[in-house]
């Protein structure tokens, strides 16, 4: 029997899906580190819960679909989804919330669409959107930073053994501004709020500003490692800052600065870890820029004018819908055809 092999016979020994995914996970570590340090170690429990449920969901679906378990379970893609879910959910959310969210992401958003590489929507964002619509209260309970809880107390809250104390439902910095402006009815202005309220730190939310800086650093590292390109993150940052900056310049009393917005909520995570998702994002350079830019605009619009605490998830899902169209219209000219358009 003839042995049909095709060139190239040399492969880049380094390249593998698992390696790509592992590096994305490493890119998340600075942010997670700051999270643990400033917000509390409970996030580690959430990460573990999400990881286990993602792998369990993945194994189940692979078995049902008759795919080789060993090959796919180790590719790391489910863990990336799991971690993104854990990092976007409130750190003291009950254990089942993150489990349900992750299973939904893996089973519905990933495997029902055909598994690795086939999902048109970012699974983590699908989970976030589904949960915030279904469990709005639980999804908006963020611990006030001043709250000093021991790890044991955090664990028992997550496990549902301790009561979900009121003081825990502190608002996120984004929410704090929104609520204060709404309640104040023109009597409060943003600069005073930022200067006086406890939830705000140096340039964004207290504590959170360093977590998001961690995401930024990890993202830059991924870019330097060429795991991601700069197009989508820059587009996102530009889109968000442009709208934020315009409104802030027009009315600094009523709107927070672009800097505040970039380092609040899911902006940095979105810019470097979510709009850069290759599977559900655009593939051409110009497409990535457009995708990121529009996602940034939408994210700002939803978080400031919409009813939800943050807009990144919905913005990304909406943009996921536009990917085939954007890709189609942004095909770059090929070698030798640049002057023939």
């Amino acid at each position, binding site marked *: 029997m*003839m*042995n*049909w*092999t*095709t*060139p*190239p*016979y*040399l*492969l*880049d*020994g380094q*390249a*593998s*899906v698992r*390696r*790509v995914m592992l590096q994305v996970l490493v890119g998340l570590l600075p942010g997670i580190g700051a999270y643990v340090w400033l917000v509390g170690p409970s996030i580690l429990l959430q990460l573990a819960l999400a990881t286990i449920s993602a792998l369990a969901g993945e194994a189940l679906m692979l078995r049902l679909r008759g795919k*080789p378990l060993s*090959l*796919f379970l180790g*590719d790391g*893609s489910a863990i990336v989804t799991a971690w993104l879910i854990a990092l976007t959910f409130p750190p003291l959310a009950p254990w089942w919330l993150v489990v349900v969210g992750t299973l939904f992401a893996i089973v519905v958003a990933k495997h029902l669409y055909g*598994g*690795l*590489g*086939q999902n048109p929507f970012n699974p983590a964002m699908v989970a976030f959107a589904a949960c915030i619509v279904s469990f709005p209260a639980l999804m908006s309970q963020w611990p006030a930073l001043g709250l000093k809880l021991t790890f044991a107390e955090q664990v028992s809250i997550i496990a549902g053994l301790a009561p979900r104390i009121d003081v825990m439902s502190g608002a996120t910095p984004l929410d704090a501004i929104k609520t204060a402006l709404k309640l104040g009815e023109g009597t409060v202005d943003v600069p005073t709020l930022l200067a006086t309220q406890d939830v705000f730190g140096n340039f964004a939310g207290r504590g959170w500003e360093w977590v998001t800086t961690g995401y930024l650093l990890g993202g830059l590292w991924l870019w330097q490692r060429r795991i991601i*390109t700069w197009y989508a993150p820059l587009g996102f940052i530009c889109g968000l800052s442009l709208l934020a900056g315009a409104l802030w310049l027009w009315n600094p009393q009523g709107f927070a600065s672009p800097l505040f917005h970039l380092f609040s909520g899911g902006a940095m995570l979105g810019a470097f870890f979510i709009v850069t998702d*290759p*599977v559900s*994002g655009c*593939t*051409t350079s110009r497409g990535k820029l457009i995708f990121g830019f529009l996602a940034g605009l939408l994210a700002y619009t939803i978080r400031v004018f919409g009813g939800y605490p943050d807009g990144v998830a919905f913005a990304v899902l909406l943009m996921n819908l536009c990917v085939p169209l954007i890709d189609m219209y942004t*095909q*770059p*000219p*090929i*070698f*030798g*055809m*640049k002057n*023939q358009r």
Partner: protein
Amino acid sequence: MLAQLFGFKGGVKPQTNKAPSVQLPIGQAPLPSCLFVPLHQNIGGAPNPLVVVGEHVLKGQLIGGADGWVSAAVHAPTSGTVLAIEEHVAAHPSGLPTLSVVIEPDGRDQWIPRTALDHRSLAPERVREILRDAGVVGLGGAAFPSHAKLTPARAVPMQDLVINGAECEPFMTCDDLLMRERAEEIVRGIAIFRDLLGAKRVLIGIEDNKPEAISAMNKAVLRLAEDYAVVAVPTRYPAGGAKQLIRVLTGKEVPASKRSTELGVQCFNVATVYTAYRALAHGEPVISRIVTLTGNIEQPRNWEVRLGTPMRELIALGRPKADTDRYLMGGPMMGFEIPDLAAPVVKATNCLIAGSPALFPASPPEMPCIRCGACAEVCPHELQPFELYWFSRARNFGKTQEYHIFDCIECGCCSYVCPSHIPLVQYFRFAKSEIWSREREKQAADAAKARFELRNAREEREQAEKAERLAKAAAARGSERKPAPASAAVLPPTVEPVQPVAAAESAEAVSPSDPDTVRKATIVAAMERARAQREAVKPRNTEQLTVEQKNEIAAIEARRAALKPEPAAAQGGRADSATSQERPGE
């Protein structure tokens, strides 16, 4: 030197592995026990045998004449006896046989009479003919007849002649050694090409990982007082692709739809230039070439090998190690696995690599595409390989053409980097061969239809004419022989005149007097010509598909079997029967 470098997008940097085979100078491979010289070693027409079994031939004697303009002659690599003219396994991935002249050397290695010529004293046409009859073809691996590339485009002045000494494929060092050892002959040979093309500037591109070759070439250029620029180009695969090197040295991008001469530039490999020089200045046709023998062997080295030498005998010189599990011809990026070592070394054999599991580990299992875009980033032709992959997989061949599948040079950069280990090139070859075979089917159908219509028209006309003739004859008979009684005796004379008419009539059918016939014949001829041209002049990416139809059909079948399209993909095939009518490569 003074030349500005332009660079090209994409490319990869695999381990070059060139060092082992440059330790020793080029060796002369001993005369093999028997030579199997395939008649068809070039792109284009297959030469026909000019010798008979039992004939004694001299070294350099013409044994296969060029068939048409895009073709090149084949010669006896040594003196000896023609044992057979038979099908012998080819140096081709399919391993199918090809018509070969089997020569048993007599050991005397006796040359034909040779005449040294100076190209400057010859008409350009004559020089091209000499090159064709000396069997000069692209030795970089494409084996395209060189003389056919030596006519400048009429409307565009020839600006640059690019000489390709980049040699970007890992493992391969035959051009490197040739430049180190025979720089002067290369530099002299360049003048032939420059003068034929009337090029204003000569740029010799060599990857900067070959400092010895660069300095040897520089010295030769200085010694011969030529004004050629020897340019060190950054080492990055595939910098030695003709289009990439042209881009790096001149900034011009040659699209797949154009010939480089239309942009005022042409490119030749250093080894080709060398053989052209030997052909003119020494009257020596192409009967040997430098082959890098390397990989998993005890003694990697470059050898000057007679064409037709069985690969097995050449490989034995390098003493393969015990764990050798395969042999590649060409580099590891664009070469292929040799199915049978009885295959001979041919003009396209630039490198033989003994492979081992350690050297070329089996590809990890294929995963789904994650659209990471790594492939697009490294594609030197700036294609979107993953889109081509999705469409090839779905058998949506019309779309693959929309996404420029025929611009793909099969360099393998995309497969090299793909984190999902998708054999992308394999998919592209599959798509290309499918498109070609559909195109051919359609052309065959068109030609058959045209023939059918032609025949119908002729038959109709014949019938009409016959009826007319019969009527006339009857009328004549009626008037002439009215008085005679109708009897068998008078029949022969009436039959007689009919025969010449019948002959004239069939001659008339193809005579150019009938405008309709002429038009149709012209269409058929034009279609045939266009097909032949396309097959002959298509870029490298279709070379292996069009060289031999037999081989190709087998290759398609085998690839199809290897791909095992999923049932869903097979279903998708129906949808694009309409798209198969689009012309490839546009």
